[in-house]
């Protein structure tokens, strides 16, 4: 299998590098990134390989491998046929659609609230990456009809469990943090699991389906 045409490998400082397979949201590229990260993670000279949307950030031990040596290893790994993609685990996440931006988002999109909820619960989303904060999952792609730019002014405080969307992405805030996405609902499901290892409910490659819950706390009705 040829290496992706848009392959870029560049340093991130002197003990990490970034392998970019492309610069777009694409399930095939994400699958390839996951496979490369898994292969690199097995190497003793690699401390951690972190899959991104279409990339792998590789943290390596310069006492065990040179930068050029590792670049060669990665190019060879990308020439090999990737192993079949594992079928990510499916998570069904209950959502109470009553977020503070729900009505404004629907109005801006020219949709009824009911249609917005139906469109948001229709797809099975892919978890393209975990990162930013512990347990944050980048889910997508969002249906075209739901795409809005981020809020002009981010909120300084978003409660954990808030279900949000921005651009082609959707997700659930795992921690109380600032945030610029549109808050359309909330879930009682916890995405950050400090007692677990890894401490994230979702993993890259997992699948997520939201469903509208009527329970008062967002729990399954």
């Amino acid at each position, binding site marked *: 299998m040829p290496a992706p045409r848009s392959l870029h490998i560049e340093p991130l400082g002197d003990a990490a590098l970034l392998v970019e397979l492309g610069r777009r949201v694409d399930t095939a590229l994400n699958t390839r990134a996951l496979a490369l990260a898994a292969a690199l993670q097995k190497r003793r000279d690699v401390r951690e390989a972190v899959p991104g949307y279409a990339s792998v950030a590789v943290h390596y031990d310069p006492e065990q491998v040179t930068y050029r040596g590792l670049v060669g290893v990665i190019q060879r790994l990308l020439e090999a046929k990737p192993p079949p993609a594992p079928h990510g685990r499916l998570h069904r996440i209950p959502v109470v659609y009553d977020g503070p931006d729900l009505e404004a988002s629907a109005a801006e999109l020219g949709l009824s609230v009911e249609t917005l909820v139906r469109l948001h619960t229709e797809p099975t989303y892919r978890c393209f990456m975990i990162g930013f904060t512990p347990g944050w999952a980048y889910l997508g792609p969002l249906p075209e009809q739901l795409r809005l730019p981020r809020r002009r002014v981010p909120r300084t405080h978003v409660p954990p469990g808030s279900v949000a969307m921005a651009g082609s992405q959707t997700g659930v805030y795992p921690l109380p*943090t600032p945030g610029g996405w549109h808050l359309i609902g909330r879930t009682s499901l916890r995405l950050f699991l400090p007692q677990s*290892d890894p*401490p994230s409910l979702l993993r890259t490659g997992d699948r997520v389906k939201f469903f509208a819950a009527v329970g008062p706390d967002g729990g399954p009705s």
Partner: protein
Amino acid sequence: MTSGPVLRIEEPGMFTTIQDLGRPGRRAAGVPPGGAMDRFALAAANRLAGNPEGAAALECSLSGPTVVALRSCLVAVTGADFGLTLNGVPAPDWTGIFLMEGDRLGFTGRRWGARAYIAVAGGLDAERWLGSASTYLLVGRGGVHGRTLHAGEELTLAGPEPRPAVAGRCLPVGQRPTYELSPSLAAVAGPHVRLLSPPSRRAFFRERWTVSRDADRMGYRLEGETLQVKAEELVSFGLAMGCVQVPPAGQPILLMADHQTAGGYPVVAGVARCALPLAAQLLPGAHLSFEEVTVEAAQAEWRRLRGALDTLR
């Protein structure tokens, strides 16, 4: 022996936490490496106290604490110069110091730098989370309940004091990082440096940058010439400590120990490991610049620098 507390915090200082060399291998779950901002200073303090480099120790930001020895122990203080005193008398930093029961370690006030480290022979006992004792405030994990230390708290040792515990060993200035008030940070050009306009690329490596007030363990926003960055939408990717991102507004952000693990802003440079201790000692208002180096040169410089730690084994 290891039973019973070894130090009591009389005054906690401005922002004192327990740190080590960081949390390994959990970035893929969104957990940053954390650990000491100045990893060289923490490792040196531990070596001077006879510990493994990554033992848990105190990181003291902006001002030092006052601690009282509850029994005899060997300590070493490194990093920023906050005016170290032993029972009110100036004491040497970057040096192993033997404390007797009742001895009081204090600081007269900041003279230079941002973060001092206090290591104790045996290492500090602390809550470990995912393989590290480092305090991560965002999620309240590690160290002491994932927060800064409070007055009156007592610290115990993680294990037996190493034998022999030798006081008086020191790391001379020439073997430390070349700490400066306005350092030039060695940095490797990053994956998206070509998204800067050619004048902005030259400016990035030539201009003097100022650390803004928005500077903490997560990262430093820098102020200076507005960089022209091509508004190409990148899809989010993994980041590393030392990465310099440029958001569309054109003011760079230097990522430090508790950095966000993913982002989509162009990364124009990565500060080398040998220069991160210099960055860790900067406060808002400080100036810095970036000096472009190759990966190989940066790695060689780190090897040279950390060779000094090996002389303390």
